[in-house]
């Protein structure tokens, strides 16, 4: 009897665990796979991972840089999960991020307004930039039923060249030789909250946005309808919900959130606009990072707060080992890739788990 009870206890634990186990398992599995890759290429994976941990979490500066990355990728991650919730797949957060960042800097350096108002206007300009850059995809979807996957992706490939052009020709800073816009006015800068690092109130803003998004999507009628059309558009249509209206709302919201991410990056950290990665393509820029953040969040805004912290820390850790131990930072892309690939393949995790549980004798052989 006693034996039975402990098994029961384990079972309830597993049930509690069930909600986040896919996320956790894929992260663990990604760590295992990446350690193997590091081993093959000739590094000591344990040493590397200890250094990544140090660079992510030990010391004020390192935590600071983790939180700075988290600030932006939380917003782009929210953008990604909103788009999945409404059923239109936006993977072009990078484009919306770039255009949003540029718009925020434009408002930041051209106008002089009192501080809180200037910040608010610049943030709105960033969100508007994101909406501007997602709208072609929406129009093509509504008018021609074109694949938003391809259109948002292509818009992301165009944006870096647009950004380069803007900082090189019409809006280049006359005082520097580098390709960037003039610095924004001090009244538009987001105040720093952990002095030596770049952590700014953008972090609080983005966490607030996450909570608001949760309230909007789960506690309001409109949010409920957006999730409904994303869940099953045919049934929603049958129930009398205007599918294209609510899908569009969610899609535009997604673009706005990614644009807001760009604005927070410019107003809080860069204080001007420039192109971090000049070439089009996948990289670990905040816009692209929204995809893994959104996936690991379990498509839940509150989960995104945790997943964005994880990926922010990962990014900061790899920046650190690049300098400290000469393991190239792009390796964090391998991490992102393995996590994304595994998390979208739940059967792998299920197979491993079942084998593991069978060995423990928790799941019967009959299954």
């Amino acid at each position: 009897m006693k034996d039975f009870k402990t098994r029961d206890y384990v079972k309830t634990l597993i049930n509690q665990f069930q909600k986040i186990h896919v996320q956790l398992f894929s992260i663990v599995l990604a760590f295992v796979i990446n350690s193997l890759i590091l081993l093959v290429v000739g590094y000591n994976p344990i040493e590397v991972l200890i250094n990544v941990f140090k660079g992510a979490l030990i010391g004020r500066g390192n935590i600071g840089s983790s939180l700075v990355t988290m600030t932006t990728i939380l917003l782009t991650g929210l953008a990604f999960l909103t788009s999945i919730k409404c059923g239109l797949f936006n993977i072009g957060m990078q484009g919306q991020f770039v255009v949003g960042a540029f718009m925020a800097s434009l408002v930041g350096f051209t106008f002089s307004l009192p501080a809180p108002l200037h910040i608010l206007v610049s943030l709105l300009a960033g969100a508007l930039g994101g909406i501007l850059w997602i709208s072609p995809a929406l129009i093509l979807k509504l008018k021609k039923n074109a694949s938003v996957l391809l259109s948002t992706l292509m818009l992301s490939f165009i944006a870096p060249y647009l950004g380069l052009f803007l900082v090189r020709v019409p809006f280049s800073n006359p005082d520097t030789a580098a390709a960037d816009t003039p610095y924004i006015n001090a009244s538009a800068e987001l105040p720093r909250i952990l002095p030596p690092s770049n952590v700014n109130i953008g972090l609080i803003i983005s966490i607030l946005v996450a909570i608001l998004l949760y309230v909007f999507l789960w506690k309001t009628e409109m949010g409920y309808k957006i999730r409904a059309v994303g869940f099953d558009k045919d049934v929603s249509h049958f129930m009398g919900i205007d599918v294209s209206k609510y899908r569009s709302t969610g899609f535009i919201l997604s673009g706005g959130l990614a644009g807001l991410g760009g604005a927070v990056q410019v107003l809080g950290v860069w204080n001007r606009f420039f192109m971090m990665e000049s070439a089009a393509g996948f990289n670990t820029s905040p816009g692209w990072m929204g995809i893994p953040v959104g996936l690991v969040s379990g498509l839940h805004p509150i989960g995104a707060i945790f997943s964005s912290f994880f990926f922010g820390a990962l990014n900061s850790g790899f920046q650190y080992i690049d300098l400290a131990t000469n393991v190239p930072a792009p390796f964090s892309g391998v991490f992102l890739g393995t996590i994304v690939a595994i998390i979208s393949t739940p059967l792998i995790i299920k197979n491993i788990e079942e084998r593991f549980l069978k060995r423990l004798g928790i799941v019967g052989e009959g299954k």
Partner: protein
Amino acid sequence: MVLGIISSILAATIRMTIPIILPAFGGLISERSGVLNIGLESMVAGGAFGGALFTLISGDPYIGILGSIVFGVVIAAFFSIFTVKFSGDQVIVGLGFNFLLAGLLPFLSARIFDYRGGSPGVSGLGSWSVGAFDFTIFDPLIVILPILAYVFLYKTNLGYKVRAVGREPFVADVSGIRVFRLKYLCVILSGALAALGGAYLALSVSNRYIMGISAGRGFIAIAAIRLGDWKPRKIMAASLFFAFLFALQIAFQGSWIPTELFLMAPYLGVIAVLGGIVGSISPPSKFEPYSRD
């Protein structure tokens, strides 16, 4: 003068067609078997890296081509394990592979070549000059590939089975076709073709591997398949069109027009095309993982 520009654009268009048409036909085969290969882009990049690496090791670009095929096949094999064996979401797994290779290649490049931005120069493929045109052994593929793909898909038993697997995997399975085996085959074939496109970029266009060398060509190939309505002849035409947009930036290098505008032309082209595709663009296959339960 005008004639010179026209012939240089024409020559550049032919050169730029190869790295689009190869992944496009790879993608076609894979899509006809029911796997939407969003990972094509990563396979093009991997092929370019493999091509440069093996050429540097052996000194022979033809061994480099074989090396790039190895890279493409390995990446595609992993992709097929995720999408075919374990029924992963084809789009998100594909995106994951793009992240993975975008991180892995600079990492390996830094480890092997001591520079994360690319490899040292490699001895390129030989070419034959005819007037303004330089031909490599890849160029005939522009004509041969569509014919081969047509014959394979529509005139052979195997191609007929591939299309059946894409259209109705369950029915195909019931009638004794080895669904999984054919899907693996098609995905791996698409990886090999995409990698060949990458090898051409590394060995004939830039004569080295550079970070970001694929420049979205894998995705443009997917757009070309869509624009070409999954028909070999039309896909060839679509590839030529996108190649023309890539060729513009070569032809107008150093002119007064900002280069960025030409660099974004191919992607703008895709968006314009998406807006212009008339009629139905519903794919002939079901892009869903197949399982027997």
